[in-house]
């Protein structure tokens, strides 16, 4: 019964989305404020209907209703409750439902938090979001309905959730990621609405900016969670694989980062407007492209959902309508957005433009690397793109990016005196070089790239500390009072940039100083890894709720001091017979110790054991979290809470 209610709600949501994409726009073009007014309530109705659908699917998982094909395919009665519920987004159909629900949620929030935005603008933005909803709901209802029944022969028990997904990290990773992907639809909708209106003023950027920042923060957390999950769950200790699906999430992140910076220029200087609009379109289109790549079967990946060319064709068609439509509109209207104000080659605008170019180059590198196998196939060649390609581009791009960040932050808008800029950087550089030299050599000597990366990360942090101090002093009311006067938007930027420095330091440390050993060990054996001694004490077996496990017991000491007791496992899941490696990790701020059971060797009780020492790996995710926190902090800036905007609503309402 719940399933029928859910199914019906999905149709209801589609009806609401159809109304939302039509009536408010008619209201705008016929100048009927009453019709425009309907945008908000329709967005809320859409969200309510989608929420009912989500609850209905969750309830079906809760009561183990295996007559529902999707439930039977992704859960079984032995699965613990938290995984039964997170199985809602454990497969293709349900994760689409989550996508659609979040999209409707973002639209509802836009409706709720746009009191200060003129009604015709809200009507356009929500109508565009309604159109995107229509596409997703049709996709679900026509090709991937999570509410399909398995009648009349339904299995008595389900097939189980993929054991890889039975993990706390995976309960929250997809929702965070999707919040980011879907959240960029708001920036996209603002961009298209702006193009429709043909007149973008600084207020436009001020409305679109916080939404973009939130979406970006969610995506940052989502990607970090995915990397963390891959690290501890796949059993290889890697944190990034340049897998097509990882790339699919990185592309909108890079473009979104560019968008955030370009929005800053549009807001402060009313410039780069066409560029900002284009970035908003690109960012959301890349989010859709990610969805296409994961679900169409075009590329293979460990994360790929069950593939179906019909679904791929639908998403591709949808992508063409959304991105193609928006780009046609852009082509027709962009020239109206050209600004007449200029800037000097040494100015904050110039450096931000450089930042944008670097970030877009990085996006293209990932896009090319991801699609190259496809191009190869079209030309009948087997091409495999591995990490050296990506690293070869990313390391120098990151170096240049940092070298642009510091002067960009130090510079004034419009024009900057080059000499004073150089002087300021020249004062900081020696400190960073000296500290970096010693910092990078602390663990053990590293190659020049490692030393340089640490120096740049320190340069970035020093520059931000220097900037905070200078700005706080500039108020001339005492240092502490001055600190309090700095805006939250500014603090958010400082935090996010320092997060990047932490991230880079973490990547550098783990890349150049990790130690990995794959060795044969039987209970009683001892292995040494640097100053650490790992003793394999014993091996036992136990039965979990839906798996059997072989578990090793290790104890680790450092120079004779006990450090950790570790229990790596090898699990065999009952329903799918999949074997999973559960690595044991002793996490620390400076280093992780990582033990994973590989394969049992011959007939003895010896195992291939992987023992890793991973310095600084936590900094990678810590850095990402700091970046996301910076985004969240920027969001609380005073100027977004102001109710009055400089623009006149009447002017916006009268254009046609």
């Amino acid at each position, binding site marked *: 019964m719940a399933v029928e209610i859910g199914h019906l709600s999905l149709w209801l949501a589609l009806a609401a989305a159809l109304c939302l994409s039509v009536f408010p726009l008619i209201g705008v073009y016929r100048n009927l404020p009453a019709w425009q007014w309907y945008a908000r309530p329709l967005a809320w109705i859409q969200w309510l209907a989608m929420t009912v659908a989500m609850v209905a699917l969750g309830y079906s998982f809760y009561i183990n209703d295996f007559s529902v094909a999707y439930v039977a395919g992704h859960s079984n009665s032995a699965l613990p409750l938290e995984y039964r519920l997170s199985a809602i987004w454990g497969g293709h159909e349900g994760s689409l439902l989550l996508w659609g629900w979040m999209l409707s949620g973002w639209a509802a929030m836009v409706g709720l938090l746009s009191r200060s935005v003129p009604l015709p603008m809200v009507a356009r933005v929500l109508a565009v979001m309604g159109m995107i909803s229509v596409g997703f709901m049709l996709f679900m209802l026509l090709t991937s309905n999570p509410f399909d029944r398995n009648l009349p022969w339904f299995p008595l028990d*389900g097939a189980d959730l993929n054991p890889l997904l039975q993990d706390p990290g995976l309960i929250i990773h997809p929702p965070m990621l999707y919040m980011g992907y879907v959240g960029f639809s708001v920036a996209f909708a603002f961009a298209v609405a702006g193009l429709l209106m043909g007149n973008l003023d600084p207020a436009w950027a001020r409305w679109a900016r916080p939404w973009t920042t939130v979406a970006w923060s969610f995506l940052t957390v989502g990607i970090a969670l995915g990397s963390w999950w891959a690290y501890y769950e796949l059993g290889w200790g890697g944190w990034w694989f340049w897998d097509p699906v990882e790339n699919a999430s990185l592309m909108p992140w890079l473009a979104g980062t560019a968008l955030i910076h370009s929005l800053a220029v549009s807001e402060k200087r009313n410039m780069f407007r066409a560029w900002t609009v284009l970035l908003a379109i*690109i960012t959301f289109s890349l989010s859709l492209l990610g969805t296409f790549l994961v679900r169409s*079967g*075009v590329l293979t990946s460990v994360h790929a959902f069950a593939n179906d060319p019909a679904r791929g064709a639908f998403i*591709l068609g949808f992508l063409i309508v959304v991105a193609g439509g928006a*780009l046609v509109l852009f082509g027709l209207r962009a020239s109206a957005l050209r600004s007449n104000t200029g800037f000097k080659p040494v100015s904050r605008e110039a450096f931000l433009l450089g930042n944008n170019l670097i970030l877009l180059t990085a996006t293209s590198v990932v896009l090319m690397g991801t699609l190259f196998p496809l191009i190869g*196939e*079209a030309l009948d060649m087997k091409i495999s793109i591995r990490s050296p390609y990506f690293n070869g581009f990313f390391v120098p791009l990151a170096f240049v990016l940092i070298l642009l960040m510091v002067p960009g932050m130090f510079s004034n808008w419009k024009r900057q005196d080059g000499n004073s800029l150089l002087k300021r950087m020249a004062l900081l550089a020696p400190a960073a070089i000296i500290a970096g030299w010693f910092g990078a050599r602390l663990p053990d000597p590293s190659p020049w790239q490692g030393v340089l990366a640490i120096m740049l990360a320190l340069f970035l942090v020093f520059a931000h500390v220097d900037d905070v101090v200078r700005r706080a002093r500039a108020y001339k009311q005492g240092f502490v009072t001055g600190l309090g006067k700095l805006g939250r938007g500014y603090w958010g930027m400082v935090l996010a940039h320092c997060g990047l420095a932490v991230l880079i330091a973490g990547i550098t440390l783990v890349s150049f100083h990790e130690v990995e050993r794959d060795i044969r060990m039987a209970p009683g054996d001892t292995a040494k890894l640097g100053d650490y001694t790992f003793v394999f004490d014993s091996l036992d077996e136990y039965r979990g709720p839906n798996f059997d496990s072989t578990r090793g017991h290790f104890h680790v000491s450092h120079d004779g001091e006990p450090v950790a007791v570790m229990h790596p496992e090898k699990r065999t899941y009952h329903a799918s*017979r999949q074997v999973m490696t559960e690595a044991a990790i002793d996490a620390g701020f400076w280093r992780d110790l990582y033990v994973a059971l590989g394969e049992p060797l011959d007939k003895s009780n010896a195992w291939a054991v992987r023992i890793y020492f991973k310095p600084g790996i936590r900094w990678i995710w810590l850095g990402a979290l700091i970046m996301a926190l910076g985004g969240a902090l920027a969001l609380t800036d005073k100027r977004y809470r102001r109710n009055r905007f400089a623009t006149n609503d009447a002017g916006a309402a009268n254009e046609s």
Partner: protein
Amino acid sequence: MKANSPWVFLPLVGFVLLAVLLASGLGRDPQELPSALVGKPVPSFSLPSLLTEETYTEDSLKGRWQLLNVWATWCPTCHVEHPYLLELAARGVAISGLNYKDELPAAREYLANLGNPFTHVIVDADGQLGLDLGVYGAPETFLINPAGEIVLRHAGDLNARVWEEKFVPLLPTQAPAPGQGEGEE
């Protein structure tokens, strides 16, 4: 209106190229058997039988049209398709079973309780043959011609519709259903 710079259409051109590329990739399904394997002989193997003392090799799959069905007791969909396999077997279709990554006592019990549609049951305990065949999961069914070559691969359950739409058109016309012809065990 200002003169329209053609550059503003550049992103659109780029996107169209991308869309064409994506559309070209759409027809292919990486989970479909790579076309390389269709028409090729079954990879060589030497595996024990589930029910007898025999050892089977790729030659055991030659000499007649037959199906090779990948199944396991842990696979719910295999339970669903089992009655249809019995029905096909009753109609004279030869079906070899590949018991995939399974526990042998459970597999024997399963066939004893539900009936055995298979002429041979090959045990692939560590999934090596499955790997060579590119098996993605159970159930999967391969159509094999008398020369021991793979003609078709179907992933997912075998049912009346799939049988009529995918398998029957590939069988020799007015020919006997697979299995008729040479000797049974």
